[in-house]
């Protein structure tokens, strides 16, 4: 039988012959099948050979049982097996071949290790166990063999295909294993790499491309030479076609000029400034986060407000331009302001508006209305340019700088004031604003006006509100109008003094956000000071809010303006406003139940004592948006 012959090679007991033997077996089988490798045929042969299985008495080698043994052991080739020998020790290794004679059945393993040593010697030397190197080839004679155990063997064709699928993941051929292993097909002679002359010594990542411009090597050319690959790159597909012609020079010069102009433009945007090498706000330690990553939140307005704010600004600008005193529109704007910030209350609102446009209420000058007016006018102007390119936000930021808090607050306040609803404390502002008659500064006025009307009185109380402290008194003094002047542009906290007097009423939020930089109006000085005077509502806010990083202009997010708008908001007052400005609430919104006492009052200023508030409730009426309340005057940034 075929198998008989096949069996023979296995007879040689020496290890070296094993593999060959196996191969021969294979070969013979294959030959028998008359096709190079027709496994099926082979199996057919095998099948034939096996014939009668049970009881297999067909004779030594030809017995079907023997065939089966051969089949199974052949299937084991390459498989990890454990072989137990007579003394009980177990060797683990890769099954390589059987080492059989007629009567004996031995095994040959590759890379065998002793995994269980039951020999006498082994019992003692357990420590040595791990450190034994595996034997490349390990022959176990039949006499020693007790059993061979293999797990997970695929025996039939189906199983094999299964195995093939599961196991045939491409084996990771490590370089070292290729070059060092003896078992890899050697297609060519392998030589270790030595650095050539051209190769840079100690190539470091840093300097590897140092000469890139003078490399004198054209990749496209090389590619073409070596591989005949033609480059089809056409620059014009990706960029504007350059008209090269007689006018090239001129055009080029012109372009350069324009470029220079643009690059040299003054900018207030931090990023642009940095690119152009202009350093803004050097003295402020704007940290990295603010500089490069935080989201600009427009003087404390939360993002949702942003648009509104913008609108507001625009409106303010418009107002300025067209003198729209009625700021009906403003109210809308006001809304966006998150009035709260308009610390200065109504007047400030206007200011705020303008300031807003200016980025930041810096300009708010809360001072007197007049002042406000001035400011307003200034503001608008300021804002105009400011708003030009940069978002208001930036402006805010900028302005904030010096006085950021103030400014912001002012703005906010202003905004608040603007919110038509300045109902409350802001009311005073509105009234103030109103009074200002005219000082529609930036749109604030309109609101103010509206409110002012309503609250004539408000101003008093409100005024206090807006600014923490200082103005409170003055504000109360009803400066609604009269004093507007006194309201110094609160914008800067510093100026509170002046403003307090009258502006209190006007609550020009001006004092609020100390729009410092921009407010050219005198208040600049006050910018830095954080007290706001005017804003009765302004509470010096101690950052209860999520901390705005002290210097991030952007982070004035803390300032966020509670969405003022719509009166309806009232109930929601504390919405968004960070720390709800409870203080004012009671006063302001009739609806607001919580009467929070001045916890929010800024430490700085008394802002206005509860007594001030008293007046308000009545006047409330307008709703100053609850949001206004929070007016976050300052989010605690006391500069």
């Amino acid at each position, binding site marked *: 039988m075929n198998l008989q012959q096949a069996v023979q090679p296995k007879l040689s007991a020496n290890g070296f012959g094993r593999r060959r033997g196996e191969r021969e077996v294979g070969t013979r089988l294959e030959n028998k099948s008359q096709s190079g490798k027709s496994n099926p045929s082979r199996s057919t042969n095998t099948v034939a050979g096996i014939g009668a*299985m049970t009881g297999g008495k067909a004779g030594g080698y030809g017995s079907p049982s023997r065939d089966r043994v051969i089949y199974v052991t052949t299937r084991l080739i390459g498989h990890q097996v454990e072989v137990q020998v007579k003394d009980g020790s177990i060797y683990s290794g890769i099954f390589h071949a059987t080492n059989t004679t007629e009567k004996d059945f031995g095994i040959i393993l590759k890379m065998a290790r002793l995994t269980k040593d039951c020999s006498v010697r082994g019992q003692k030397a357990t420590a040595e166990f791990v450190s034994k190197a595996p034997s490349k080839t390990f022959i176990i004679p039949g006499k020693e063999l007790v059993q*061979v155990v293999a797990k997970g*063997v695929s025996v039939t064709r189906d199983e094999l295909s299964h195995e093939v699928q599961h196991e045939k993941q491409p084996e990771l051929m490590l370089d070292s294993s290729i070059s060092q292993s003896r078992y890899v097909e050697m297609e060519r002679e392998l030589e270790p790499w030595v650095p050539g002359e051209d190769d840079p010594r100690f190539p470091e990542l840093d300097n590897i491309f140092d000469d890139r411009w003078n490399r004198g090597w054209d990749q496209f050319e090389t590619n073409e030479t070596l591989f005949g690959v033609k480059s089809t790159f056409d620059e014009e597909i990706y960029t504007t076609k350059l008209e090269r012609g007689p006018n090239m020079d001129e055009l080029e010069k012109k372009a350069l000029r324009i470029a220079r102009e643009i690059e040299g433009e003054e900018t207030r945007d931090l990023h642009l400034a940095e690119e152009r090498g202009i350093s803004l706000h050097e003295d402020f330690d704007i940290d990295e986060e603010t500089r490069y990553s935080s989201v600009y939140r427009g003087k404390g307005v939360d993002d949702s407000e942003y648009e509104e704010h913008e609108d507001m600004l625009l409106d303010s600008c418009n107002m300025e331009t067209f003198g729209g005193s009625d700021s009906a529109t403003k109210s809308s704007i006001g809304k966006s302001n998150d009035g709260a910030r308009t610390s200065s209350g109504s007047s400030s609102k206007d200011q705020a508006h303008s300031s807003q446009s200016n980025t930041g209420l810096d300009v708010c000058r809360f001072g007197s209305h007049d002042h406000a007016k001035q400011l307003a006018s200034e503001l608008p102007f300021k804002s105009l340019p400011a708003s030009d390119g940069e978002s208001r936000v930036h402006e805010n930021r900028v302005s904030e700088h010096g006085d950021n808090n103030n400014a912001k607050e002012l703005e906010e306040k202003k905004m608040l004031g603007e919110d038509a609803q300045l109902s409350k404390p802001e009311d005073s502002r509105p009234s103030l604003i109103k009074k200002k008659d005219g000082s529609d500064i930036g749109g604030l006025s309109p609101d103010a006006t509206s409110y002012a009307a309503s609250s004539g009185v408000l101003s008093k109380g409100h005024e206090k509100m807006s600014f923490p402290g200082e103005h409170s008194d003055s504000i109360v003094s009803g400066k609604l109008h009269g004093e507007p002047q006194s309201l110094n542009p609160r914008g800067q906290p510093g100026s509170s003094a002046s403003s307090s007097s009258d502006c209190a009423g006007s609550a020009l939020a001006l004092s609020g956000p100390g729009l410092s930089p921009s407010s050219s109006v005198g208040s600049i000085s006050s910018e830095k000071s954080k007290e706001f005077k005017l804003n009765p509502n302004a509470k010096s806010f101690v950052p209860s809010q999520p901390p705005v990083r002290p210097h991030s202009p952007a982070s004035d997010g803390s300032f966020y303006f509670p969405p003022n708008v719509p009166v309806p908001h009232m109930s929601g007052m504390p919405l968004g406003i960070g720390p709800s400005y409870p203080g004012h609430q009671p006063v302001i919104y009739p609806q607001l139940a919580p009467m929070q006492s001045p916890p929010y009052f800024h430490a700085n200023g008394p802002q206005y004592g509860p007594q001030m508030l008293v007046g308000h409730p009545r006047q409330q009426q307008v709703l100053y948006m609850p949001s206004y309340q929070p007016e976050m005057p300052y989010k605690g940034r006391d500069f």
Partner: protein
Amino acid sequence: MAMDGSANPEDFVVGCVLSIKTTLGDEFEGQVITFDRFSNILVLQEGSKQGPRRNIRLLKANYIKEWSLLGQAEDPLDIKKCYLDLNSLQAREDSAIRQAEAEAERIGVGVTSEAQNIFDALSKTLPVRWDKTVIVVMNEVRVSSPYLPESVSGGTPAANDRVKKVLELERKRLQSRGPGQ
């Protein structure tokens, strides 16, 4: 029924399920695939699951201490499905050997377990191999017993330093993980 000496070939009918106890103390059950009386090898298939893989045991029948017949089932080996692909088998063997070699390189012969631990730790980030009891890193830096930073020698200064550093770190880590590691 217990049989001593070599079992009667007729007893081991293909397909029957047996319970066997060996003279060395192993006990198991399995289904007979074949029994070759000439070599006295009993080939069993263990495990009841008829999955793609089987556990195969080849036992020299003379080591059977006692056995009993549990039942009779049909032939576990379906002749028609038998298949041998020598090439793939060979490839499998080669791959297994390569793998085993790679693993073997990792184990030092005659080295303490501490040394082996250090070796294993170094091998996580550096190409290492054993040369007797010396750890060879990147084929140029040698770390000999007692595997301290001072025992690092050879290689370029940069490589040497790097190995020293890694060694220190790994030692610290091993220490912190617990003495006796």
